[in-house]
């Protein structure tokens, strides 16, 4: 348990992906079964433990200590799980003679009935160290929130066994905690597990961005073009009555889209884009799609107003036949015939974009017929469906990004190689009537500049600091003083969280405008005009 607790403590504070991978890999390598598999399940969200409500946790602790002292403590720390882990009074004279393993902790929590759950939890906390108490509370309150995605954990497994992460993703949904057979295979002690489970995820094929000069070397006749829809890449798999809707990384998202899942009454594995609206009438915008994202449960009202549908562009399997080795042209023919048999309010076909030369396609790309199109996809007619991102068969050719001139307002220190540099920038645009303009923050970006530019901005930040809050500095920014940043971004969403009412998607610094006076930066109205 203590090793798992230590892992969580480290992961929470390690910002770099490589650092997290090292910590995870070392943990999986050094910890034995079944503890490591249970830890993996906890991180990927596949561990089932009956949840304890925060109110129950608070009740448990104030039975054991002065509520006033608990109140002071909670006020200071601000996080209930952390506060309880710190203040939990061990019973007088109680010296645990055994540190429970993660497996023992999970076993006792899973075996607890609803009524004796709190008592079991209290006994576990009595026996645990502070860090272990924190980990136990995180396990029972649901959601570790340690900044590690299931995908990253799988990558660490792939590193451990020196295999492709796609292999692990393909296996994943057929495996259950504590994944002993998976670790045995990764450590070369056993054959790759074969799964009898149905409706497994198939690792998806990804595309490369079109680079300068790429197209000149390619023959337009070799490629099909489709619109690139800015929805969510999904894979709909139905096999022997099991239905699963997977995200691009193999997470099961069926629960968030019950309306679409209900219409999946076929035997196939289809690849496509999840969008909202009715494909026969109108496709919803990105803001409409937002209404369906990041929700644990979806009300019938939301489902009705923003129905989910799938715009299909590939078929990996139909009626038990694996099509992935066939050329795209052939798969597409099968797909067209198959989609015709499905509910037309939930499934349609991603249309081709007709073109004869790259110039024509370029014109079409610049003026797409729908706001949720973010460019075009190019797919070689003869390409098989390959997991990962092979170079050559598929390209994405995005619409040029939007840019805006904004003023640097706050800078935050980075981590690791950037730990002594102010490298994360919050920027704003002008708002308010003429003569009393104010900057409103519209986004934050931490890449897009060169190392040399980073040094220049860092110096500027240090020389123009007006206030400090921990690792953040507020930078002089008014009509006469300020550094103008040209910020590129992919799109805008309405946001109730930001004062400006807008949130940028994928913002990055495209140019430093040392030459431009701050007063000439853009106004909020310019951004508002881009909404929808």
């Amino acid at each position, binding site marked *: 348990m203590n090793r798992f607790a*230590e892992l969580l403590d*480290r992961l*929470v*504070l*390690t*910002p770099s992906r490589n*650092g997290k991978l*090292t*910590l995870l890999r*070392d943990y999986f390598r050094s910890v034995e079964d079944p503890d490591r598999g249970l830890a993996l399940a906890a991180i990927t969200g596949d561990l089932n433990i009956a949840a304890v409500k925060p109110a129950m946790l608070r009740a448990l602790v104030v039975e054991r*200590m*002065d509520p*006033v*002292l*608990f109140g*002071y*403590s909670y006020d*200071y*720390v*601000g*996080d209930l799980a*952390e*506060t309880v882990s*710190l*203040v939990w009074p061990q019973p007088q004279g109680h010296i645990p003679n055994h540190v429970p393993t993660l497996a023992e902790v999970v076993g006792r929590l899973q075996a607890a009935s609803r009524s004796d759950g709190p008592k079991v939890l209290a006994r576990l906390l009595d026996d645990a160290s*502070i860090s272990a108490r924190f980990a136990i509370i995180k396990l029972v309150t649901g959601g570790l929130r340690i900044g590690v995605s299931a995908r990253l954990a799988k990558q660490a497994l792939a590193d451990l066994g020196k295999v492709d992460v796609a292999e692990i993703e393909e296996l994943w949904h057929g495996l259950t905690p504590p994944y002993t057979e998976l670790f045995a295979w990764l450590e070369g002690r056993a054959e790759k597990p074969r799964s009898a489970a149905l409706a497994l995820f198939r690792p998806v094929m990804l595309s490369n961005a079109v680079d300068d000069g790429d197209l000149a070397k390619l023959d337009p006749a070799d490629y099909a073009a489709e619109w690139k829809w800015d929805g969510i890449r999904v894979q709909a798999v139905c096999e022997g009555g099991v239905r699963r809707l997977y995200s691009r990384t193999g997470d099961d998202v069926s629960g968030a889209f019950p309306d679409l899942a209900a219409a999946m009454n076929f035997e196939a594995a289809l690849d496509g884009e999840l969008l909202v609206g009715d494909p026969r009438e109108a496709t919803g915008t990105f803001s409409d799609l937002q209404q369906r994202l990041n929700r644990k449960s979806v009300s019938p009202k939301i489902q009705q107003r923003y129905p989910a549908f799938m715009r299909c562009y590939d078929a990996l399997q139909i009626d038990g036949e694996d099509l992935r080795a066939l050329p795209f042209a052939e798969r597409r023919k099968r797909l067209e015939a198959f989609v015709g048999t499905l509910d037309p309010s939930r499934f349609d076909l991603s249309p081709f974009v007709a073109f004869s030369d790259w110039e024509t396609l370029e014109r079409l790309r610049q003026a797409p017929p729908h706001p949720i199109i973010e460019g075009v996809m190019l797919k070689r007619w003869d390409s098989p469906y390959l997991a990962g991102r092979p170079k050559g068969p598929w390209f994405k050719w995005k619409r040029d990004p939007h840019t805006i001139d904004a003023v640097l307002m706050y800078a935050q*220190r980075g*981590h*690791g*190689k950037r*730990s*002594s*540099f102010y490298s994360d920038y919050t920027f704003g645009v002008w708002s308010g009537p003429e003569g009393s303009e104010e900057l409103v923050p519209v986004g934050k970006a931490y890449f897009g500049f060169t190392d040399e530019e980073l040094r220049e901005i860092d110096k500027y930040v240090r020389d123009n600091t007006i206030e400090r809050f*921990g*690792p953040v500095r507020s930078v002089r920014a008014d009509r006469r003083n300020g550094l103008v940043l040209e910020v590129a971004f992919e799109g805008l969403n309405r946001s109730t969280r930001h004062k400006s009412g807008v949130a940028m998607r994928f913002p990055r610094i495209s140019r430093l405008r040392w030459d431009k006076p701050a007063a000439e930066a853009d106004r909020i109205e310019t951004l508002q005009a881009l909404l929808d």
Partner: protein
Amino acid sequence: MRASDLLKPRPEGLYCPPGDFFIDPVRPVERALITHGHSDHARSGHSSVLATQETLDIMGLRYGENFAGTTQAAAPGETLDINGVAVTFHPAGHVLGSAQICVEHRGMRIVASGDYKRQKDATCLPFEPIRCDVFITEATFGLPVFRHPPDHEEIARVLKSAAQFPERSHLIGAYALGKAQRVMRLLRDAGYDRPIYIHGALAKLSEYYQSQGIDLGVLEPATVESGSKADFAGAIVVGPPSAFADRWARRFPDPISCFASGWMRIRQRAKQGGVELPLIISDHADWDELIITIKETGAAEIWVTHGREEALVRWCELEGIAARPLHLVGYEDEGD
């Protein structure tokens, strides 16, 4: 005699009217008794200073030889008479030379703890609980959330991380007096025998600790001249926390920032400070140490100063011990 007639807070610091002296005054005064060398307790410019020899040495290193008009060294456990008031310095276990000051007059004994801790520390004498009528305790970590783990466990985490990330350097932020030397000593006790690189701000004090027989092993200046970036791969570097936000830190390869402080108990504190590897190593008493110390002094009355007074006062009330916050100004709440 009433306790409040023996010691009372004044803007300059804690004042003893019958003895006519101040304890840890924050402004220049005629006669100052100083508990330890941290700059918020030990200031320059007093006419006369009474402190342990180590504290006087440390003040000399920090402020120059003429930091006070006259100085007098107090030997631990030896009672001095100041205008009829009996004054005794006792070890406080905080940093090298740190002392509690026991003041006794007409049957009333008050102990001003200064800053103290109870965890073992190889760089200074251990705290001695003194029976008294009134105990003046610090409360830097006076909340039940502060529970310091054993320091050797924290040091083991740095060494484990250094083995896990051999291509990176580990930068340990630690206050220049006391904490830095304790961290170095702990590294040595854990068997770390490579040179430890130190920031220039630590050089004089670390040298002084070594001269007092506290072995810190081989210390190298963390200068660019002494090595290229690659030479610092796998290195452990100790410096004042402020230096790590500075351009100074750029000489190290992909550093992991560590901070040795009791504040690191709170995750959000670590996160806000950009600390990747928090080390909960404190020179102040944690909650458990505070309450055990209060009990051991047997004091009927507790005065609580710099820190989170309210929780400790509350605890005393629950235990039936009279307690009140003593509002002294000028001490850094955050220093650890």
